[in-house]
């Protein structure tokens, strides 16, 4: 059996500029970091099984790969040419729809796991690119490339998306103190609202021609964010997140909604320096950066607001940063 995992990520600024409609016109750029929440895939060759057994929120037993309903498992197997009878299951610390890039981490995990099963050793770039191809070109998801790259490379990175489809990966060489201190200034809450990124990004994609200037100004924030991060200016980072969030809300009507706005306002009113909704928006997780001393007050206030809004699944999510991308956790295959 092969067990493989890829981390989820927190995107800070520049999100949306990784959509081809934007970076074909002007270079896109994002800054993100991977966290200690993972998507796992287990691959178990089972020669006597009559086909493929896929285990996720449901169980699928099919004779041919092409009959699989799970689109990412199906297309990754088809793309890599895996035809053997096998069980393939997935486990995750967080459900899909939390804005942490889970579906792309899943695609990356599948590419790494199934290529390892075939005895192939792929470069990180190849893994990320194959995952992008499967999700964007084959499955026609209206998403960008940042999550596949973040999950593959791991750690704090900036990614630049060029019009020729190349991606420049620049690791941010952040010392342990800044990374741990950033964790101490962060608060992440799951709103209890699960949403599909594609529903938000579809409108955002259509709007790109009118929003070029907004997106360009968000791209400009990436380098500023990086400098403040390396300096450990957490207040400055919070303010930048706030600025980025105000811009992001303009990209599409469904990036925010009244619940998110009320939660965000309560966090800010109780002392947060800034924050944002993680991922495409419309639900998922909210991130705040705040002074250490204000964290307890903010926690109480947003929980109270969530209760008032009837968000029964609202919950704080403890987060740590990790520096390793997609990885084989264990492999008992000889090759």
């Amino acid at each position, binding site marked *: 059996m092969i067990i493989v995992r890829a981390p989820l990520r927190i995107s800070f600024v520049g999100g949306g500029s990784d959509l081809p409609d934007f970076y074909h016109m002007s270079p896109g750029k994002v800054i993100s970091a991977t966290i200690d929440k993972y998507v796992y895939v287990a691959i178990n060759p089972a020669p006597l099984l009559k086909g493929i057994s896929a285990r996720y929120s449901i169980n699928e037993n099919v004779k041919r790969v092409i009959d699989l309903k799970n689109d990412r498992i199906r297309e990754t197997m088809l793309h890599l040419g895996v035809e053997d009878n096998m069980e393939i299951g997935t486990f995750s610390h967080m459900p899909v729809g939390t804005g942490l890039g889970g579906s792309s981490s899943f695609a990356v995990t599948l590419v790494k796991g199934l290529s*390892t099963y075939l005895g192939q050793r792929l470069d990180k770039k190849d893994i990320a690119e194959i995952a992008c191809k499967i999700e964007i070109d084959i499955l026609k998801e209206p998403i960008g490339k940042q999550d596949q790259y973040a999950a593959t490379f791991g*750690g704090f990175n900036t990614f630049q998306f060029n019009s020729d489809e190349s991606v420049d990966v620049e690791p941010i060489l952040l010392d*342990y103190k800044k990374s741990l201190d950033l964790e101490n200034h962060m608060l992440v809450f799951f709103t209890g609202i699960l949403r599909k990124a594609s529903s938000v990004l579809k409108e955002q994609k259509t709007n790109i021609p009118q929003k070029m200037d907004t997106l360009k100004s968000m791209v400009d924030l990436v380098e500023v964010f990086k400098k403040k991060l390396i300096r450990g200016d957490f207040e400055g980072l919070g303010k930048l997140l706030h600025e980025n969030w105000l811009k992001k809300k303009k990209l599409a009507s469904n990036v925010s909604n009244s619940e998110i706005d009320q939660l965000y306002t309560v966090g800010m009113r109780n002392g947060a320096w800034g924050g944002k909704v993680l991922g495409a928006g419309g639900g998922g997780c909210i991130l705040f950066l705040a002074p250490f001393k204000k964290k307890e007050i903010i926690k109480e206030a947003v929980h109270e607001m969530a209760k008032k809004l009837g968000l029964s699944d609202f919950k704080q999510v403890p987060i740590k940063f990790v520096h390793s991308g997609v990885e084989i956790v264990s492999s008992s295959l000889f090759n």
Partner: protein
Amino acid sequence: MEKHIKSYIKKSVKLLQNLPHKEIAKAMNLLQATYERDGRIYVFGNGGSLALATHWVADFNKTVFSHHLDKNTRRFQAIRLPTTEEELTAWANDVGFDMVFAGPLRNYLRDGDLVIAISSSGNSPNIIKAVELAKEYKIPVIGVSGFEGGVLNELADVKILVNTDKGEYELVEGIHAVILHLITKYFKNYFDYLDKNISIK
């Protein structure tokens, strides 16, 4: 004598001032990622560089955790290659000296590991053989070299080059030891801070 001492120190100081900071930072980033995924770190070199490799292993496996030996269940897994003199001589005698590192490396190497190759010239055939094996396995390589860097500096993912005239082994090996201790101290401080940080939370 005074003149020799002065001139040697002057050259060493200049080399220290020109060290590639970004590459050293990249190496520390890679070591951090390898630690987090519980990967293994293989270190090797010839002659004085083999002594440094052994020193590196001792510092990583023990010294960085010195203040928390009872706390850290997850530690670095640094391995000097070859691990025994018997393997070294067996590979050298039976197969060839160019296989003394690549041979044993093949026994261990798996996804998620890391290689640190030390060579003053950067051209030792046995070092290059092992680095090529790591590259074939898509394992990241930190190349610690001197002189012009040689093939090692070309192949390595992280290029820590102490750029000197050819044959300046003493200077290069001395600076390599400083780099090792700089990295050791960084991780020692990291585990101290992590410990303090947990008690804050």
